[in-house]
């Protein structure tokens, strides 16, 4: 009796549902352009750049489920800093590359439902011919010490991301520390204080020829300019992606070397920020479930991510992706570096920023043309103040280290006299700042002749033989269209110099992006907008030099 009536009422309710469904379908057809955002449901995710290739997959899920998923990309270290704000963080979820960034940043315990979506180790991707020459093909016992020695011998030009901005750089760096500390149980504060450890790590970081704030950009710039360097520390997944672009383009693939005594594995945790909205929480959990479903997991494996229920083993994965000819080991069993405590990670990053990283030689070209008058000029001065004022710079982590060199060249119709500060002596920096504050906006714009002066400065260091001790970069702060009379001459002089430093630009106001983009592309630099705030743009630039 119970069963039968339950069946009947169930049927009636079911019929009601069908009616309602039919009704909505009718409205949809009539309405015509009802899209997924009509529900008003959004999910914002602050994510590491290495997840960019996953966007189509996630967007498709959003379309199907009526959720507008918006992803914002930042370095894992910045994600960790953003988490410091607790529930004031303007995102519904975070997706850094490693759970250590949640451990470090989530001091207010606002994350929930953290789950590792996929794994990828940080490896050395090195030109196949170089790997061959070094005898590293087919070996699993290449140590961090071997890599350091080869880099010191000039066997390859090395690129990696900034350890104080990006997880892949931080992972490689923690791997260096761990290896030079002699593979302890876990890296400790005492290891960080050890002068021998510091010296060895400073030395390998000194071999880095190119730095960037983002793993994805590093890979892309490698593809755009394959002659610029020979090896990069990056995610196995991104080396695989690079190879899948290099090989069809007729280029040699990169060979994957897993450092035997300094391998860190990114575990890519996706975590919800609990702000007390159960509907958002449900959407989040649905998305997470979708990403962890066996279908999606096998799609992610085809993108070079290590997925599945257990272990890192991708034996049986697509051989075009998990390609042993590229040095990729599907059944990876190399022991990984134990994750240090958040306290040790924080101290290691401070040490990196202030003492161990390769010093930078940054030439700032400041546009003082008439069109900069007013807000743009004030913003440009503000930018320099953030870097040169010791109190300001310490809070934004933009401070020069004691070995950095800062050169400022104002320009309008013609370049001004270069002003220079070596190191981070507050008195010297504030003198430089005073000179910047006294600049007046007037005259026309010739960025290229100023670039010519910057090139001369770089050549001066090169002829003294000291340029190799620095990560050199030029940063242009400008608002507008430059005269082009000197352009071709400067471009060919830069190419002929063989110095290969990047030219980045921070674009103010109505900048002519075409000129800046072309300049950045020619020098493997990057154009930064100020739309996310000046300090963000400056931090971004810092990561790239």
């Amino acid at each position: 009796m119970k069963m039968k009536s339950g069946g009947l009422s169930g049927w009636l309710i079911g019929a009601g549902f069908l009616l309602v469904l039919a009704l909505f379908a009718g409205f949809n057809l009539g309405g015509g352009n009802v899209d997924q955002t009509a529900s008003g449901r959004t999910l914002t995710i602050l994510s590491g750049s290495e997840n960019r290739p996953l966007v189509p997959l996630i967007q498709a899920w959003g379309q199907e489920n009526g959720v507008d998923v918006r992803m914002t990309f930042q370095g894992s270290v910045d994600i960790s800093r953003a988490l410091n704000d607790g529930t004031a963080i303007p995102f519904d979820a975070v997706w850094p590359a490693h759970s250590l960034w949640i451990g470090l940043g989530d001091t207010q315990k606002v994350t929930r439902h953290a789950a590792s979506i996929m794994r990828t180790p940080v490896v050395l991707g090195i030109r196949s011919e170089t790997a061959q020459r070094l005898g590293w093909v087919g070996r699993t016992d290449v140590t961090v010490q071997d890599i350091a020695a080869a880099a010191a011998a000039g066997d390859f030009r090395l690129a990696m991301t900034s350890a104080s901005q990006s997880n892949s750089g931080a992972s490689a760096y923690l791997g260096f520390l761990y290896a030079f500390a002699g593979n302890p149980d876990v890296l400790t504060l005492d290891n960080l204080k050890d002068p021998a450890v510091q010296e060895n790590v400073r030395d390998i970081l000194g071999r880095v020829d190119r730095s960037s704030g983002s793993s994805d950009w590093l890979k892309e710039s490698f593809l755009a300019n394959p002659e610029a360097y020979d090896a990069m520390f990056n995610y196995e997944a991104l080396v695989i992606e690079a190879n899948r672009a290099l090989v069809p383009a007729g280029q040699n693939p990169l060979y994957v070397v897993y450092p035997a005594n300094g391998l860190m594995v990114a575990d890519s945790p996706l975590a919800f920020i609990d702000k007390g909205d159960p509907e958002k929480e449900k959407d989040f959990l649905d998305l997470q479930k979708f990403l962890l479903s066996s279908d999606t997991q096998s799609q992610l494996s085809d993108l070079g991510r290590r997925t599945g229920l257990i272990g890192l083993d991708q034996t049986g994965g697509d051989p075009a992706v998990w390609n042993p000819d590229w040095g990729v080991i599907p059944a990876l069993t190399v022991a990984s570096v134990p994750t240090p405590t958040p306290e040790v990670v924080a101290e290691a990053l401070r040490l990196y920023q202030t003492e161990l990283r390769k010093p930078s030689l940054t030439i700032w070209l400041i546009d003082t043309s008439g069109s900069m008058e007013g807000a743009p000029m004030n913003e440009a001065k503000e930018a320099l103040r953030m870097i040169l004022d010791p109190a300001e710079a310490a809070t934004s982590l933009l401070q020069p280290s004691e070995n950095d060199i800062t050169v400022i060249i104002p320009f309008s119709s013609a370049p001004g006299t270069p002003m220079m500060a070596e190191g981070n002596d507050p008195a010297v920096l504030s003198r430089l700042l005073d000179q910047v504050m006294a600049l007046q906006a007037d005259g026309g714009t010739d960025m290229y002749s100023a670039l010519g002066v910057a090139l001369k400065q770089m050549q001066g260091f090169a002829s003294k033989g000291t340029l190799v001790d620095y990560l050199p970069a030029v940063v242009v702060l400008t608002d507008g269209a430059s005269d082009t009379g000197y352009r071709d001459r400067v471009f060919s002089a830069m190419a002929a110099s063989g110095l290969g430093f990047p030219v980045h630009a921070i674009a103010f106001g109505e900048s002519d992006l075409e000129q800046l983009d072309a300049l950045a592309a020619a020098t493997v630099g990057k154009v930064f907008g100020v739309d996310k705030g000046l300090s963000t743009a400056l931090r971004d630039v810092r990561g790239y030099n």
Partner: protein
Amino acid sequence: MKRSLIGLVALAVVALIAVAVSTLDLGNLRRSVVPTEAQVVTLYYGGEKSALLDDPAITDILRDRYNITLDAIRAGSVEMAKTLDVTGKDCLWPSSTVAVDLARARGLRPLSVDTIFTSPIVFYAWNEVADAMVSAGLVRRADDGFLYADVQAVAAKIQEGAKWREDIGINLYGSFGIFSTDPVKSNSGLIWAGLLATAMNEGSLPVVADLSVLLPQLQNTFASMGYMESSSGDIFENFLKQGMGARPIIVGYENQMVEFINANAASAPMIRDRITMIYPEPTVFASHPLISLTPACTKLAEALQDPELQGLAWSDHGFRTGLAGVVNDHESMMNATLPETINQVVPMPTAATVEAMVAGLQ
């Protein structure tokens, strides 16, 4: 215009049907099955029971037979006992008996405390690691086919500073040890700390006075783990996903594997091929005492002793019964195989000793 008019009519029809169903027929029938309004019991519970409390088979029994629905909020065992506001809560259902002492110390006066389930602390190891530990004489395979670890010998190896590569013969970096959650934050880590302290104290339950000798060794052991997860669910997941190179062997609850295998039945053979459960000898039972603060909770305590519910808790979630006289036979398990009884069990040190130990490990 016309379409929306049809829509309105259709909506009215649906509404009418709904009203008809609820007033006429369904209401009466519901009442004949469930005589009174269901009683909502509010509680804090330890995270290990999440899957169990989400299981419709369990909640159906509570509702249909005992007229109880749960308003349950997940919380840490220690925080619910020590700090969370319990106003309006009927029960606390932590994952350790230490929490009962802590609740009493805070001035709560429970009407009753009933141990509903238990689950022993076990080790989960990659098969290669388990084999190496058998060869090293730390683990034995018993006649029943299960593996048992000699905790005394394991503790001795840890104290000697044994290395995985040199002393256990497996290609891993660092010192030999069993990875656990943070003992300051999580129950399974805390139980492991208690078990290790007992073993390092030559097998006798340590008291506060023993800690001056034991604490430095415990501090070393836990410091060598580096980053420690704060929940047993997280470490279990990281253990599985990050592979042997990251965590060769971990401390967990016996029932975690049962729930994992039941949730991923298709992968059960692969999991069995790669992962081994090892029973420490002696072990500690993590018990799940239901602390009744109101009569409504006392009713829940009775309902949770329903034999069918207890059977499901065992077969689908791996929780051993906390009730005297009930045997957990292993034939009823769906995918996992567990020993019927666990014989070598020690208690945790007293609450005062545990608190002093936690303070020392902070």
